[in-house]
């Protein structure tokens, strides 16, 4: 029977190696190093249509990731989507900043883009972003295009 001390050592080493592998995977392979560890403040915004926006999608301003989407819920009084956003504490935005839902690439994943406003006061935790632009829904775009084409046609006919 193996010496108890040495056996404990090897098992401990094994578990330690495993833990090391987990940490490596979490930090270097996964996306944990971005966001969850730094301080953040929460801001919310309402949208008519969030399209394909998912929790944990990035929030970018000038192309830089400045936060992550938290929860997405539905307000059944105003019938709008309420998106809660975790903003990186290092970056402060004016109170009148606007939030748009944009798509990365042509058909990529959707994210929120923040355009800074000009207000002197800054957004604090719990504040709401007032100016929002919903996601562009492809079907609406197409029907809009068809409708405007039809209207054009009618004008020409007149």
């Amino acid at each position: 029977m193996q010496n108890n001390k040495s056996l404990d050592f090897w098992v401990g080493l094994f578990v330690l190696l495993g833990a090391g592998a987990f940490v490596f995977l979490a930090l270097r392979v996964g996306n944990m190093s971005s966001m969850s560890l730094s301080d953040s403040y929460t801001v919310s915004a309402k949208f008519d249509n969030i399209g394909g926006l998912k929790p944990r999608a990035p929030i970018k301003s000038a192309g830089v990731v400045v936060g992550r989407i938290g929860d997405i819920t539905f307000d059944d009084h105003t019938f709008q989507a309420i998106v809660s956003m975790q903003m990186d504490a290092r970056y402060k935005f004016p109170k009148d900043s606007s939030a748009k839902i944009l798509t990365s690439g042509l058909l990529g994943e959707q994210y929120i883009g923040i355009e800074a406003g000009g207000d002197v006061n800054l957004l604090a935790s719990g504040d709401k972003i007032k100016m929002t632009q919903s996601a562009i829904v492809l079907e609406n775009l197409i029907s809009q295009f068809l409708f405007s084409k039809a209207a054009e046609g009618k004008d020409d006919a007149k």
Partner: protein
Amino acid sequence: MIYRLISQLGQSVRNWLEELGLAIRTLIAILLAGLGLWRRPRLVTTQIHFIGNYSLVIILVSGLFVGFVLAYQGYYTLNRYGSESALGLLVALSLARELGPVVTALLFAGRAGTSLTAEIGLMKAGEQLAAMEMMAVNPLQRVLAPRFIAGLIAMPILAALFTAMGVFGGYLVGVQLIGVDEGSFWSQMQGGVDLWEDIGNGIIKSIVFGFAATFIAIYQGYQAQPTPEGVSRATTRTVVLSSLMVLWLDFVLTALMFK
């Protein structure tokens, strides 16, 4: 003639159901016996050593080589569409989601599974289990449950090690050998691999595989005929059953997890 065929079919289904029932009952008995083991952790740690540490070499080396191959093959295909910079993402996702848990489980079944089956089968053949029973010690608690829990603990650790080695192997071939840009290798990977969705689900898979593969190995040993042929047949059955079970579970879990 048809009547006989059908009644034989019914008979085999009944036999199969009885065997399944016995297996489930044994599983429950092992789990219950395992609950009392927290008072005797040394039994479990000894087994973790035999199951986990002794599998380290094969897992680490295999992981490394799988990473190498993934990088080679991945580069070849991605290059056609000009997306070589996504190589890191390809390697990491394949490993974390599928190859890590599945290949580790298959290697585990082959190395640790067969050794478990043979050990328990030989103990049964040498009447050691009966002797233990006669000494008023429950062999399920003393022999089977520690090995089961050890397998359950060791498997996710081995899978994580496999995946980590694979990513490292992919890095070695992709960046060092082929020359893909190091920065985009890691950043694309980190951008695309989600901690919970990909890595977390992979770990869940490996725990489920560990449950299945370890139980099958232990059960086959426990039920083996106490003769040399019986034990050898049991070890073969362990490898075949575990492998099939792992692959089938992988299909089910993938369908459930990755929509």
